């Protein structure tokens, strides 16, 4: 079947050349493993942020945001982080499959293992506060974060639906003034409000009620808004809201 002397021809062609050095292959292997580990780590970071956003959602007042719990979940799902998680898991499984012995494992087993690692590592990271740190750091540095990624900000700017959140900047008797998430000043009337705590200056709060006029909000319920360092009060020396002059 084979007429030419292949052995001789091959030896002639490879004469003077050497096999590729071992380090080239080792480097490629290590690079594939490294990218796989990085992807798993990023997947875990995404998962820790998903956990943070899930547990720090407005579950206590979801009926005010949407009557239907499923619609509320649909509205507040952290899609961006879920897409990131899926992306990093895909990259991780691709890299694991392309390691030297990766082909020996069934695809679904690699995917399940990647998801399991992301979940376990992500839960540990969440427990030490990494999820919160990521959410807060990105929220303060990425301008579009709250528009597209963490919808909480948008939800609490719906004053026409009776939802307002902001940082307490001053108090006037029972009423107080807050700087809303979009930077506007609001006088919050608390006469008819259920208020299970006493808000302090600089504290983020959620107000449920109705808009009574331009910059005036009649609260029916006032709740704390913990774990939102991105809602910091700006430095203020003097402000004037609806005729009330406040000097700090």
């Amino acid at each position, binding site marked *: 079947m084979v007429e*030419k002397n292949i052995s001789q021809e091959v030896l002639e062609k490879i004469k003077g050349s050497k096999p590729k050095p071992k380090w080239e292959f080792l480097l490629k292997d290590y690079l594939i493993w490294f990218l796989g580990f990085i992807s798993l780590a990023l997947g875990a970071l995404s998962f820790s942020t998903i956990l943070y956003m899930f547990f720090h959602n407005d579950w206590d007042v979801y009926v005010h945001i949407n009557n239907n719990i499923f619609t509320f979940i649909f509205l507040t799902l952290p899609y961006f982080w879920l897409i990131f998680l899926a992306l990093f898991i895909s990259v991780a499984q691709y890299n694991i499959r392309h390691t030297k012995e990766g082909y020996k494992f*069934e695809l679904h087993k690699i995917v399940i293992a990647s998801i399991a690692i992301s979940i376990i590592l992500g839960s540990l990271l969440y427990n030490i506060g990494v999820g919160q740190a990521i959410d807060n750091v990105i929220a303060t540095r990425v301008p579009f974060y709250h528009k597209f990624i963490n919808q909480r900000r948008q939800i609490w700017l719906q004053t026409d639906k009776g939802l307002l959140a902001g940082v307490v900047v001053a108090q006037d008797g029972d009423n107080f003034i807050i700087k809303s998430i979009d930077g506007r000043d609001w006088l919050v009337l608390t006469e008819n409000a259920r208020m299970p705590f006493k808000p302090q200056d600089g504290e983020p709060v959620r107000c449920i009620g109705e808009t009574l006029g331009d910059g005036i909000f009649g609260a029916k319920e006032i709740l704390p808004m913990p774990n939102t360092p991105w809602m910091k009060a700006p430095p203020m020396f003097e402000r004037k809201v609806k005729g009330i002059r406040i000097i700090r």
Partner: protein
Amino acid sequence: MAYLKNLENLSDEEIVKLTLANQENFSYLINRYEFKLSRYIKRISGLNNEDIEDLLQDIFIKAYQNLNNFDQKLKFSSWIYRIAHNEVISQWRKRKARPENVYWEVDNILDNIVADFDISREIDRNFLKKNLENILEQIDIKYREVLVLKFIEEKNYQEISDILKKPMGTVATLINRAKKQFKQKLQEANINL
């Protein structure tokens, strides 16, 4: 002379190590696999002899260039069959065509297939012999290749897994499906007669 005789008795893996020290030793590996690989390529690719020889050269050159990447946990035969498989696939891609007329040695594979497929009672052996080539050609390429490796090259599941770089479970599934498709084509041919 004694050195040469000793080399012939060495395993492939040992010759690989010696080749890394002296290029000339690679000829022993070429001589061992030249015929086996050309037969394998012909069975799965349907290429003519000239193209097979060119492809064989490419395979051996590639094997030599990547000799430092040979994993001693694998059999050398699995590793070089893998290179051959990949080269055939890349040939298909270059030509943008898959094989049509492949080469089968019907007598050699008949016994293997009859024994393993449990079809001897259902189909007349002479009929099978006459139609085997035609039936094998009708089978999908992905199934045909595992049939070649299992029943003609007589590789075990582990070796097929290493050659095709697929998990053993997937190899088993492919072989089962290949058998089913083979039986189905066989029955269709029997009915159509």
